[in-house]
């Protein structure tokens, strides 16, 4: 009987006689395995972080200067994933390189390099395929917008087409639009608080989403309704959202975002427009109440509003430190809506002149710190101006397109108006300037959401928008001829509505002053 021992034959490695090359090859194999394990761990961490980030919806992103990695929605676009993959690729890269250098340099260097390069290429290919995954087909080339922005715009377009545009002509004639009804529809769909905190009903997104909304609202066939919406979302409420107390926010901000309360902004007065520092409305402290006397002018939605964000003097002192923002309910006794102003354009937006006759309001209604009203108001101007630019750009596009359509079918001297070189060349010039302004808008918005101060660029954009809108309106109206002069067409309404852009929300001259300040060309004292 013989005993069969089955021996497992193992390849015998003759360690002594291994060449450096073979040793190196083995080490590279070993490293590859380790790299794989490390990558797996890092990937797992990445995925978990991404899931955590996507679950996060309750971060207030309004306060500027917030650290980028704390802002969930900024990362959502996949930029986070891409950045992480890149970092991971670089990190593992470095580890691999480091270790290969520790090996015998007498070994086949090109083999190492080849292997390292191979792995590096593999990693970078993985990274670049992740970039492709992160950005979808339609939005992959947009400088500012992600698929989420486009999804938002699509829903808003449906609302504009179904709930707003069919009624615009009627509202223009009546001189008012039903703000409560329209704002409720928008509020239900989440459009009145796009960059407001989630705990008050907002979406907690960054300003680029507000710009997307502003652009889409430019599809409305008038200027008045988007202007009123802009007041609600980006003029009367930002300071409250940022600096107001929790009770104030619950009473005024939450219903404004839900669309239940209409807001208006009380800053300009009969005697003070561009010179905001010289407003005269006073809010004098008596006990724990403020007694307000004075008046406000050019109050958009003033006849329908439930509350006003009021800028008033609360102390005597240097003009930039003596004003406060106050939340004022519009049904308070002593408030008189003196008249609804009859305007050349923006007719569907009601604009009121308001008087205050010993109006009493609790002192807690002051937003933030007393005396900081002027500063708070200034802070939100950048957003206000970029919003206006986004809005009017879409309108300008529309007017140019409609002019192309009209002049193509309208014939003079036996050929379409459009075929005359002066016409199509001029439209090309206008379209060029529109695109230039759009680039400035996206550039300023991109910088702003990273936390930079874009006052100069925003002022430049608003200045250009106002002037370009006048040119577009004027030139296109000319090509519409007699038809353009009638009330039946969009171009005449645009001509009237867009004229306000150079006047309101900071007149052209004020914009020029700001730009000169940044250029340091103002007369020195």
């Amino acid at each position: 009987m013989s005993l069969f021992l089955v021996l497992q034959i193992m390849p015998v490695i003759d360690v002594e006689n291994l060449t450096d090359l073979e040793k190196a090859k083995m080490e590279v194999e070993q490293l590859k395995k380790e790299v794989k394990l490390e990558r797996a761990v890092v990937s797992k961490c990445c995925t978990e972080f991404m899931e955590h980030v996507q679950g996060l919806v309750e971060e207030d992103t309004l306060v500027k200067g917030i650290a980028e990695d704390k802002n969930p929605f900024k990362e959502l676009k996949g930029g986070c994933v891409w950045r992480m993959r890149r970092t991971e690729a670089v990190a593992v890269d470095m580890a691999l390189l480091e270790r290969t250098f520790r090996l015998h340099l007498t070994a086949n260097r090109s083999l190492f390099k080849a292997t390292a390069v191979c792995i590096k290429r593999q990693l970078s290919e993985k990274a670049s395929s992740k970039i492709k995954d992160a950005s979808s087909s339609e939005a992959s080339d947009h400088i500012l917008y992600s698929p989420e922005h486009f999804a938002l715009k699509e829903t808003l377009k449906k609302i504009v087409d179904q709930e707003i545009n069919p009624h615009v002509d009627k509202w223009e004639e009546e001189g008012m639009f039903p703000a409560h009804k329209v704002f409720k529809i928008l509020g239900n769909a989440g459009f009145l608080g796009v960059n407001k905190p989630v705990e008050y009903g907002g979406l907690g997104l960054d300003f680029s989403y507000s710009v997307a909304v502003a652009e889409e609202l430019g599809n409305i066939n008038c200027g008045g309704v988007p202007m009123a919406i802009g007041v609600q979302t980006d003029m009367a409420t930002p300071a409250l959202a940022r600096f107001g107390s929790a009770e104030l926010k619950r009473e005024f901000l939450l219903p404004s975002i839900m669309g239940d309360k209409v807001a208006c902004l009380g800053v300009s007065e009969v005697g003070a427009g561009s010179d905001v520092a010289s407003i005269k409305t006073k809010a004098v402290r008596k006990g724990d109440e403020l007694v307000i006397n004075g008046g406000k002018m050019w109050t958009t939605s003033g006849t329908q509003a439930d509350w006003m964000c009021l800028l008033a003097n609360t102390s005597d002192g240097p003009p930039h430190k003596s004003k406060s923002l106050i939340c004022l309910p519009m049904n308070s006794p002593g408030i008189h809506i003196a008249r609804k102003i009859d305007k050349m354009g923006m007719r569907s937006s009601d604009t009121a002149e308001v008087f205050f006759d010993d109006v009493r309001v609790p002192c807690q209604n002051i937003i933030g710190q007393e005396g900081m009203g002027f500063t708070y108001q200034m802070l939100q101007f950048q957003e206000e101006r970029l919003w206006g630019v986004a809005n009017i750009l879409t309108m300008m596009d529309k007017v140019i397109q409609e002019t192309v359509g009209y002049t193509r079918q309208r014939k003079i001297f036996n050929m379409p108006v459009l075929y005359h070189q002066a016409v199509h060349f001029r439209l090309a010039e206008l379209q060029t300037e529109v695109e230039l302004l759009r680039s400035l808008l996206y550039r300023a918005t991109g910088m702003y959401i990273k936390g930079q101060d874009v006052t100069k660029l925003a002022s430049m954009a608003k200045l250009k928008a106002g002037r370009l809108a006048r040119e577009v309106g004027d030139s296109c109206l000319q090509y519409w001829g007699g038809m353009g002069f009638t009330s039946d067409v969009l171009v005449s309404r645009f001509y009237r509505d867009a004229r306000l852009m150079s006047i309101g929300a900071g007149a052209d001259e004020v914009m020029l002053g700001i730009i000169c300040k940044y250029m340091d060309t103002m007369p020195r004292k």
Partner: protein
Amino acid sequence: MLCTPILSTTHTHIFSLSQIRVKPDHSGVVTDGVKHSMNPFCEIAVEEAVKLKEKKLIKEVVAVSCGPTQVQETIRTALAMGADRGIHVEVSGKDYETLGPLQVSKIMAALAKKEEAQLVILGKQAIDDDCNQTGQMTAALLDWPQGTFASEVAIEGDKMKVVREIDGGLETIQISMPAVITADLRLNTPRYATLPNIMKAKKKKIANVKPADLGVDLTSRIQILSVNDPPQRQAGVKVETVDDLVAKLKETGRI
């Protein structure tokens, strides 16, 4: 209280209401590059299904659409409105061009049996072909009761009360579940998908199914002979008096 899945078809993936042009060979209308969207009556159907789920009367809403890959966008819209998951029945090319109510209802019947659905809600008709047949055919194939042109739907125990819009006014019927309902205009107002819901919808599942897997034969019993533009509207003629009008009508042989 019923805890059952319901199927809601968003089959109709129709052309958006912009320029429609007839193909040069008169075999149909041009569909390349035309934006497609969900049939309005199907939107109302989805909204009703989501409402029933919110009232906790049904457990799960499944949105179904038949067609090429683009219909997935339509299913995503339904998911963003509140459906739980989607089923995309892949039909493309020649089969899609000849896809009609009979084929769709066969698919719906097969799916309803497979998913053990208690309720199938569809739009009453597609606004591109105005057939108004799919719901009725589906009910017949399944041998289920049907409540068509519903302007009001209420689930009471294991029965449904449906108010139907008919020529003479409104008719209220009681049918037992499982049943097929088709949605009419006044059933509800569909909600707008909010951004958070659109983002949630991205994570919801859309299953891919082929008609062959369901044992459905897609051959069409109908052949389209030709499609033509409606005649151009001619200019009218103005007349001064009623007598003139009568004379003119007699002259042109209208009376």
